[in-house]
């Protein structure tokens, strides 16, 4: 039995974990930031390394007993350095938001001007959104999208010259096209501004060289390790050659800001899992995986468009797409998809006309279904289910008032909709041919 030890002492929790595994098995996730880590990665998370305190860095720890931990962290760092072609990597940040926080604390003072892609335009909370602490401590200048949904690079460059930020974030969480990482560095350096690329979403694509790398065009690169990179929940902060030339000592400053500046002991079990995931990403099969993610996204987007649906920028170059659902109707379609056995998440559409909590689109991505081994023919089938589910809720309109009550009622009605139930049965059947693998090569 899986999780035998939990079963022996805490049956209800063991059942919940198994239920969640079954849910993942039966309902494929199209949430572009989710993926399925290998059993090797997960077994490192379960290792006794979680019991160790290792404040400091390899060779310079505050506690003894770290000779083996040092080897493991050094392997993780070395693999990151090699995979991304950078001179320095730090693998200790607990996750993506804390990693970005370290960048602020390294290069900014509270009140400084920083620049980031706006949240509704595809930026991340930590790139200066109001709800994030980063939006409170700094003066935030936002760049955004053109009416056609592509990045407005020209305007961004004008803002750099005018506002002279000390830090600019490049990178996105909901941008379906190649991110023009090379566009910002000259203007930024002219204005003494640090360029930090947050590649969390596309790190796996960059590692596999199917998306241009920001490394030559940024001073710092941050990423989570659990999205397309397919590792444990965690993060890597990298300093580039360009960063070291622009700010000598930047790498050491980042290390010091992370520890002792903002974190305590690193999670060594996670470090081991990161090392394993980076080993997987260096394997030749990872390149095939990353290529397939994009082929699948293209197939999904083109089939949806062939069914008459609207996709932002008319397609995708990467792992994700934004499907237009009608003004404020993202939650309606998300709910319908969920009953049809598919998970996507409501998201702002370019030039969003509705609100942040009730946006007009659903974000769909292919990293997880590609890990299951699905290919373009399956994307065509999934696109068909999405289109049919949308038709079943075509008459639903988000009311101006009483929205939470409406959504609760909608979800109850959809839960007993037989046609959506049939779609869910079809998806579950499809998934049975593509189980979540324990090994990735």
């Amino acid at each position, binding site marked *: 039995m899986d*999780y035998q*030890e*939990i079963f*022996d*002492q*805490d049956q209800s*929790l063991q059942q*919940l*974990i198994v*239920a*969640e*595994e079954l849910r*993942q098995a039966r*309902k494929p*996730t199209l949430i572009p*930031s*989710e993926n399925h880590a290998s*059993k*090797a990665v997960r*077994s*490192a*998370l*379960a*290792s*006794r390394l*979680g*019991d*160790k*305190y290792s404040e400091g860095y390899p060779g310079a720890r505050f506690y*003894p*007993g770290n000779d*083996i931990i040092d080897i493991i962290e050094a*392997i993780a760092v070395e693999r990151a350095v090699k995979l991304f072609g950078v001179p320095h990597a730090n693998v200790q940040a607990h996750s*993506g*938001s*804390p990693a970005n*926080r370290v960048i602020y*604390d390294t290069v900014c*003072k509270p009140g400084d001007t920083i620049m980031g892609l706006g949240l509704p335009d595809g930026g991340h*909370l930590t790139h200066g*959104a109001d*709800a*994030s602490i980063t939006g409170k401590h700094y003066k935030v200048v936002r760049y955004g999208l053109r009416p056609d949904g592509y990045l407005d690079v020209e305007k961004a460059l004008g803002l750099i010259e005018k506002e002279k930020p000390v830090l600019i974030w490049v990178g996105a969480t909901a941008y379906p096209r190649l991110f023009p990482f090379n566009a910002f560095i000259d203007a930024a350096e002219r204005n003494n501004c640090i360029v930090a690329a947050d590649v969390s979403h596309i790190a796996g694509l960059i590692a596999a060289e199917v998306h241009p790398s920001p490394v030559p065009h940024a001073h710092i690169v941050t990423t989570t390790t659990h999205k397309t990179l397919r590792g*444990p*929940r965690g993060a890597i902060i990298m300093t580039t050659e360009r960063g070291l030339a622009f700010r000598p000592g930047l790498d050491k400053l980042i290390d*010091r800001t992370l520890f*002792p*500046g*903002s*974190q*305590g*002991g690193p*999670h060594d079990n996670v470090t*081991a899992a990161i*090392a*394993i995931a980076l080993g997987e990403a260096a394997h030749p099969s990872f390149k095939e995986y990353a290529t397939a993610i994009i082929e699948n996204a293209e197939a999904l987007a083109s089939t949806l468009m062939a069914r008459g649906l609207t996709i932002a920028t008319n397609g995708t170059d990467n792992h994700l797409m934004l499907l237009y659902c009608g003004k404020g109707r993202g939650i309606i379609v998300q709910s319908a998809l969920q009953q049809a056995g598919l*998970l*996507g998440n409501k998201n702002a559409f370019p030039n969003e006309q509705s609100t942040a909590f009730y946006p007009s689109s659903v974000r769909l991505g292919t990293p*997880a279904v590609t890990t299951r081994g699905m290919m373009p023919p399956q994307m065509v089938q999934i696109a068909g289910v999405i289109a049919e589910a949308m038709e079943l809720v075509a008459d639903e309109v988000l009311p101006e008032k009483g929205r939470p009550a409406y959504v609760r009622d909608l979800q109850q009605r959809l839960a007993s909709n037989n046609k959506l139930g049939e779609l869910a049965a079809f998806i579950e059947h499809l998934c049975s041919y593509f189980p979540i693998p324990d*090994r990735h090569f």
Partner: protein
Amino acid sequence: MAELYPFIKKQDAEVYQALQGEEKRQAEGLELIPSENYVSKAVREANSSNLTNKYSEGYPGKRYYGGQQWTDVVENIARERAKELFDCKFANVQPHAGAPANVAMYFALLEPGDTILGMDLSHGGHLTHGHPVTYLTKIFNFVRYKMKNVDTGEMDYDEMRAVAKREKPKMILAGYSAYPRELDYAKFVDIAKEVGAVTVMDAAHIAGLIAGKACKNPFDYGFDIITTTTHKTLRGPRGGMILTRESEDTAKKIDKSVFPGFQGGPIMNTIAAKAVAFGEAQQPGFKTYAAQIIKNAQAMAEVFEANDIRMITGGTSNHLILADVFGSLGISGQVAEDVLDEVGITLNKNSIADDTRKPMDPSGIRFGTPAITTRGFKEQECKRVAELMVEAMKKKDDQKTKEAIREEIRGMCKRFPIPDSFV
């Protein structure tokens, strides 16, 4: 015995070898670092679950993404168990670790520039209580209280009141990472009331002792908030947690600060592991464990006392001991750490109160009993370990003695293997 990590072995020999090495190191040596412990296999299984694959930004019932029917239940179980263990109304189990929990808590309740009254770092406070190397000191104004008498551990509550009245802190912070005694929580609350400050206990080190009813619960004396790690004495996965006794308004501010203020998606596999660990802490056996940690520490203190080795505060009322080895034996903390490492005992050098030596080679060592108590050590074994420690430090250049001690330690480890299950 089932093979460890078969999947890693198949694909990654380099990491596999290191993981095996670490298993062996933990098995064959005695862990006396007071912040370390051994978690159960059940906790580690939860950490390795597929919940790692899920994005769950938000809180149960209010998530940004779908597919949360089971993650919601798991997080609710963790919260309910935490509330029951610490007797409070609200729990946030999402902080990635102790330092992030403290940071999110500060920003939830304070404005930049506000004053925090915390324990002097050289008297036992933690890095996140305002050490100059942390960025927090650029944002908040930290002021200090300390011990009145380092030989008894008695805090200087009169001085604390005077500083509070002068500096008008918005927050009074109790808690420590190197203080071996109980605090008088009621006095903290009195002083905080006089100046209108919120009271916060960073219970990371003693959370397990509080949950196991072996130490006083600050909530019983009116404290507003407890922050803690979930590893250490609480014997769960590496993670953090923020507990609020009573105020819904405060709890809401804390939730908002943790997400979306500082963190993104919670680490759901770790939250499941927290739930498992809290379940273990609810078992009657956990009370016995917590009480035994203290009995064991006191047994070790007796040996140090009999050998005339000065202990800061004169002994211990919790899981840890801080010994002035430089003052008593003429060897620095670093030398003691190295010698004891040679004989298979892991502990750490530590500054003692008002240390005249530098932090990288201070006068003291800090050690504790949470991990060896998990192995099943009782007073008798702990006394023997303390005797061996004293002997190793006194005869630090005698290779033969050290080898004999190493052998005896190895034998003890064999007799008391690290258990997989505690219930």
